[in-house]
């Protein structure tokens, strides 16, 4: 922004006595912070609406076939889900602490807290990877994929492969269902992958954001005068956490 302003109007901007971190179109740092925070909250509203579409699908499908969903949820690993919940809660705590550190000008502590948050995010994705690969190997995936237990035209080869996985426990349970029920159980996993996949994308976006904050923090950009980016980044991270707080019981704890 600054370079653009300087190149376009030359001397006229120099008259402003703005600190460097305040953009030219704001009167002061306070207005800039206020506006940024307001904008961030509105972005979070759009994020909530973005997930809302999927939550509506979840609600409709589940209320149509509650028993199928109860049955399907047994294949999710509550242990991993619970660990991930704790991981995200810890990360929300550390990112909130990092904001406080930034406000107080404690650069080292802020960087440590941001780094722990980033580690937690990475840990979350690793656990998600373990869970996903288990589901994919077991064939609990989208009905049109070749290695899917819910594929109505599943090939004999794929079927044999899936039956061999983990002594065929999952295979047998799904095969015992009648086709209509199986379809509804399959819908659960479609929704599961869409919801957690979309959430996972948001976690990864959060990791990029946190890394950017760490880099800027190391450069010494943040302090009591300017902690806007840390504050807004933390807000985003909280909504990612909050979505998971809803996803965990809705998917793992159906009983």
């Amino acid at each position: 922004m600054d370079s653009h302003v300087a190149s376009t109007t030359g001397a006229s901007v120099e008259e402003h006595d703005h600190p460097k971190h305040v953009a030219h179109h704001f009167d002061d740092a306070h207005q800039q912070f206020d506006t940024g925070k307001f904008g961030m909250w509105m972005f979070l509203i759009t994020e909530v609406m973005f997930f809302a579409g999927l939550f509506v699908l979840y609600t409709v499908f589940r209320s149509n076939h509650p028993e199928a969903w109860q049955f399907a949820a047994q294949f999710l690993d509550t242990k991993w889900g619970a660990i991930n919940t704790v991981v995200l809660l810890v990360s929300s705590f550390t990112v909130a602490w990092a904001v406080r550190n930034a406000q107080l000008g404690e650069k080292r502590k802020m960087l440590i807290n941001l780094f722990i948050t980033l580690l937690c995010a990475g840990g979350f994705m690793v656990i998600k990877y373990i869970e996903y690969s288990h589901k994919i190997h077991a064939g609990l995936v989208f009905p049109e994929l070749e290695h899917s237990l819910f594929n109505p035209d599943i090939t004999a080869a794929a079927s044999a492969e899936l039956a061999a996985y983990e002594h065929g426990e999952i295979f047998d349970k799904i095969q015992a269902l009648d086709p209509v029920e199986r379809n509804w159980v399959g819908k659960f996993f479609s929704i599961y992958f869409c919801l957690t996949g979309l959430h996972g994308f948001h976690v990864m976006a959060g990791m990029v954001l946190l890394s950017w904050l760490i880099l800027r923090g190391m450069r010494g950009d943040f302090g009591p005068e300017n902690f806007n980016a840390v504050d807004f980044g933390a807000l985003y991270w909280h909504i990612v956490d909050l979505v998971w707080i809803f996803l965990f019981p809705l998917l793992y704890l159906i009983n």
Partner: protein
Amino acid sequence: MYDQSQGVNYLNCSKGFWSWFGTLDHKRLGLMYMWSVMGAMLVGGSFAMMMRLELFAPGEQFVNAEAFNQLFTLHGAIMVFLVIIPGVPAALGNFALPLMLGAKDVAFPKLNRLSYHLWVVGAIFFVGVLLSSGLDTGWTFYAPYSTVNNQTAVVWAVFGAFFLGFSSIFTGINFIATIHKMRPPGMTWFKLPLFCWALYATAIMQILATPVLGITLLLIGVENLLGVGIFNPALGGDPVLFQHLFWFYSHPAVYIMVLPPLGIISELIATYSRKHIFGYRFIAMSSVAIALVSFIVWGHHMFTSGQSPLTSIVFSAITFFVAIPSAIKVFNWVATLYKGSIVMKAPMIYALSVIWLFGIGGMTGLWLTTLQQDIHLHDTYFVVAHFHFVMVGTAIFAMLGGMHHWWPKMFGRMYPEKLAQLSSTLTFIGFNLAFLPQFVAGTQGMPRRYFDYAPRFEIYNQISTIGAAFIGASMLLTLWYLLWAIKKGKPAPANPWGAVTLDWQMPPIPGPHNFEEAPVVGDPYDMELFTWSEEEGGFVPRNPVPGNPYQAMPRSESEEVPHA
């Protein structure tokens, strides 16, 4: 004439491709949006012309059924996602909103630039649709059409619309933050120009509704790529759920398209009647009311989808409420015209056209709201005519009116008035010729979305095609003289129309940062503040703010304006 040689303005302050494509200036972004939207409009418009030519006579002329399906799909998708939705808010709104507010820029200039770049990405995806050819789902991407046929083209299109959606969301966030936080001292909520109110109401819908479209289209994309089985009935999915989610966005989207244009009309009617707008607060609140009601009426697109009769009755009943705030606007415009000193400049011709066209478009909406009537009229040309009266007759006409109105402020040059009057009148005549007969054909049962029709509908289609030719010709004429005016037009005075909103209380071409100091804010419709000056060839403040010849000193309600 004001001194044009005073130096730096936003157009000449820097040069080169990146100084435009990478700019953070809301005015430059507004102009780039405008050119891009006009380019898309040429493409979408030529598809419309091809359809009208095919429909000139029954039977196959030169376009077969498959090609026709693709034509109407692309015409709809391009016009909705690339033209009308960004047309007024992102193009004219970007240019005018900070100027009208008295702000130096929008709240988040980088986000604003990102919005434009996302528009470009979306447009590139649509080029992908054109190249992969075969998108024939209609612009609505209804499942299961969109999940079984021509999957490549569908994936291109839904991802394109996804990016365009985020472009629109970011514009919305920006405008709400700008209006909340960037107003100068004295600019209270009820001193906002009505165009700003309209943009505000629109932004509410943009940020609440568009994400739902985003996730829905993403799911259609995933459905095509991976077969997730949520909407595709072949895999046990529910296509009606797609319709619900789609219209939860796309009905508010109709008002995203039409509210900002109606805001422009409020500005135009007041300015060219030289009279204070009638019922300011009612017009402002009617925009907000339309935005709120828009979220609970989507089911009226689905009366024939098999949703429960009770649902249809409820949606039908709620939809009638939309008529109230819409009518409030029209009545207030007419009341503003009453005893005004009406100046028939081209923007006013467009504005008066909109009162007529929006009147018809809105009233026929009530026919379609009526449940039992809609069962008969659903998917006929009556519906096509209805939404063209609103989408084109209101949105595009108001956009053209706004473009003429702000052209002098954008480029510092006047457009040729006589030609503009001619072409706006021709467009109006052409539009009525093109779409009024479609109401008749529709009530008699001519179905939409076919390349062929029964011979008894021939006369309506022929009139319609002739009307379309009028529109096409006058649009090309308009494009030509507007471009001509940028180079050769008469230099514009600072305030050629005597408008009082802050965008007209500044030099003929705004400087890069709009206002050096926060402007003095008064009633945006106090027309007495400006008076015609033969010498300047435009309007000048009767009582200028000391040190600023462009700004009029506002007055309190009782105060007389001293005559200069």
